């Protein structure tokens, strides 16, 4: 046990040290790169209008730019909590958001438009009320539709909403005008309603505490507006985007009619997209592995304290804290715990997100492992403890030599199950913008607008790992059974 905890400590120290060494001050920008042409992924990098503008500003101001890709729901929180300096994710200026953060001068005026199918009976925005509307969660479109029309279906990104529209799950999608053009050029059988739903301004979000940075940004942005650089950046990406979209269109129409092989190539081979799955897979394994170790250590200690308290009446106070821990951790969703640990507990630390995930899932798993271990310890006949004690062994000697080895064997199946659950639970890592296996599939989906292949591939990989784990546990159980 001791060696485990040392190992984890070393690892965390390593992770902490490895973040960033540079003489230039850092500027961290957060975005969700599924919003072309404003931000999108090309290979491993995030590109688009927002990154290009911010890069220019960072260069002018003498910062080293670091871009983090995370879910749109979290970008403003990230800036507020100090995890990032600026959010640039095609964010619309709204009164509500202004209460939480400062906006720079707007760099673009955008519209929320409505996409429907060609044969749709929807012709004006007034018709929308009676139909199912899809939006990207947390966007202005979402806010507007929710407030003024009806409760919409919320999707993680626009691409998913459009996919749902194409497959008939939605009647209309409300989305920003720019990406709408892109989707329209990629998918046949879609059209725009003639009048946009709203018109709005995009700006960058900066923490209210960081007034100096806001002034700097505004100064450079105004310069860029004046010398035409802003316009040329925006134009360049828009043109480029319709071109790539045209490429995709060909691929897509082929995909729909020709078949599986092309779809496979589009989703996994083209642009080396399989790398998203592979890297995500490694991240998932890494998080799961260390979270399991941490969970085992925590669970073991907590179970020992709890069962000692129950059986001997000692350790009343530690037992109280253990019970609190179990109640809180088992009583709240792991996603919420993950977000709290990332945004609240480590809010103002520049800490590696993988480490955050390991800690969050480790603490979570520890609670379940603790109860599994405790059940195991308490299932051992109390004659075993009495026999050990009657021979003059101490309580802990008897625990270590007699009770725990037997308990461990009894709870092995339940432990194996907990590891499997943990592995799958790490799929919510995407909430703090970790690119785990699930998120890897999401990225492919957002690039190819295909739900089937990326999701099935992700599912199959999880399944394979679980089957492998199960067989491993089975072998271990069998080996322990032999010694009886």
């Amino acid at each position, binding site marked *: 046990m001791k060696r485990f905890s040392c190992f984890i400590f070393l690892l965390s120290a390593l992770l902490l040290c490895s973040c960033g060494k540079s003489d230039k001050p850092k500027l961290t920008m957060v975005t969700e790169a599924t919003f072309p042409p404003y931000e999108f992924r090309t290979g491993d990098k995030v590109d688009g209008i927002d990154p290009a503008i911010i890069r220019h500003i960072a260069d002018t101001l003498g910062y080293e730019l670091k871009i983090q890709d995370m879910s749109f729901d979290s970008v403003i929180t990230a800036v507020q909590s100090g995890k990032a300096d600026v959010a640039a994710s095609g964010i619309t200026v709204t009164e509500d958001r202004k209460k939480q953060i400062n906006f720079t001068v707007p760099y673009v005026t955008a519209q929320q438009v409505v996409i429907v199918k060609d044969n749709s009976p929807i012709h004006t925005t007034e018709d929308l009320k009676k139909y199912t509307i899809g939006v990207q969660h947390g966007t202005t479109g979402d806010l507007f539709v929710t407030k003024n029309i009806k409760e919409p279906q919320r999707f993680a990104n626009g691409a998913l909403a459009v996919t749902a529209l194409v497959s008939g799950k939605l009647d209309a999608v409300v989305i920003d005008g720019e990406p709408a053009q892109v989707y329209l050029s990629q998918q046949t059988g879609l059209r725009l309603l003639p009048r946009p739903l709203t018109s709005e301004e995009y700006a960058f979000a900066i923490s209210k505490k960081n007034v100096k940075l806001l002034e700097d940004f505004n100064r450079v942005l105004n310069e860029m507006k004046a010398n035409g650089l802003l316009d040329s950046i925006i134009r360049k990406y828009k043109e480029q985007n319709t071109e790539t979209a045209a490429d995709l269109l060909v691929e897509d129409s082929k995909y729909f009619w020709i078949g599986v092989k092309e779809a496979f190539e589009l989703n996994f081979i083209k642009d080396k997209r399989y790398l998203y799955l592979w890297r995500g897979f490694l991240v998932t394994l890494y998080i799961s592995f260390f979270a399991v170790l941490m969970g085992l250590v925590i669970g073991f200690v907590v179970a020992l304290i709890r069962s000692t308290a129950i059986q001997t009446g000692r350790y009343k106070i530690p037992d109280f804290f253990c019970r609190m821990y179990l109640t809180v951790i088992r009583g709240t969703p792991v996603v919420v715990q993950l977000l709290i640990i990332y945004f609240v507990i480590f809010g103002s630390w520049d800490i590696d997100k993988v480490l955050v995930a390991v800690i969050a899932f480790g603490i979570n798993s520890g609670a379940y492992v603790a109860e599994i271990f405790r059940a195991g310890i308490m299932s051992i*006949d109390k*004659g*075993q403890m*009495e*026999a*050990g*004690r*009657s*021979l*003059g*062994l*101490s309580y802990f*000697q008897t625990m270590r*030599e*007699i009770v725990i*080895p*037997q308990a461990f*064997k009894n709870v092995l199946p339940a432990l194996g199950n907990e590891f499997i659950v943990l592995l799958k639970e790490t799929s919510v890592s995407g909430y703090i913008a970790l690119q785990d296996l699930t998120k890897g599939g999401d990225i492919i989906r957002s690039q190819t607008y295909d739900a089937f292949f990326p999701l099935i591939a992700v599912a199959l990989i999880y399944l394979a790992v679980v089957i492998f784990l199960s067989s491993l546990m089975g072998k271990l159980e069998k080996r322990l059974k032999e*010694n*009886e």
Partner: protein
Amino acid sequence: MNENIFEVKGLVKEFQGGVKALNNVDAEVRKGEVLFIVGPSGSGKSTFLRCLNLLETPTSGHIFFKGTDVTDKKNNINKFRQQVGMVFQHFNLFPNLTIHKNITLAPVKTGRLTAKEASDKADMLLKRIGLFDKRDSYPSQLSGGQKQRIAIIRALAMNPDVLLFDEPTSALDPEMVGEVLSLMKELAREGMTMAVVTHEIGFAAEVADRIFFMDHGQIVISGTPDEVIRNPDNPRAKEFFSKVL
């Protein structure tokens, strides 16, 4: 004073819910004697035995072991128990350890013997009871009688001053009772101090130096087998033995 291994004074044990299992018991276990404790079910005889090595914490009263008050909180309970062996009704061998390890674990872990000494001693004891070939087996591979004999030598391996037996044959099939009783008889002959709770009245009458007859948490009469079993001058004892003999 030195004659007595245990001296019990005013021992009371009250379980949760107010059941008084022992009601003011005074007794002693003398060095080298074979003491049997008999009586009807629920009379407190097992509780009395389990109080002797403090598996049950007395509610009040004192227990002196070789002159030291072991009910005193400051007394080192583990050190004390190392000198008092116990054999249980359900054997309580450690199923996760081999027979050899079952015997050597406590002497080594408590520092009473080195690994080598403990191993030699275990082998010697195993040979003595004719189970050396089971040395590397696990408890689940043994019969009940074999398990109980292993449990006895496991306690012996600690070189205890006294052995406590808590109904050692009650969980055994009838054909296995003999092998356990004969081992106990052998130990008695060698001068081992023993306190035995049992329902085997015939065996008690044959082997015991002294017998306690307990009822309702008290020792009703004590004395030689003749005095207690064959000619008791106590109506409750008379009634009990007339039924079981």
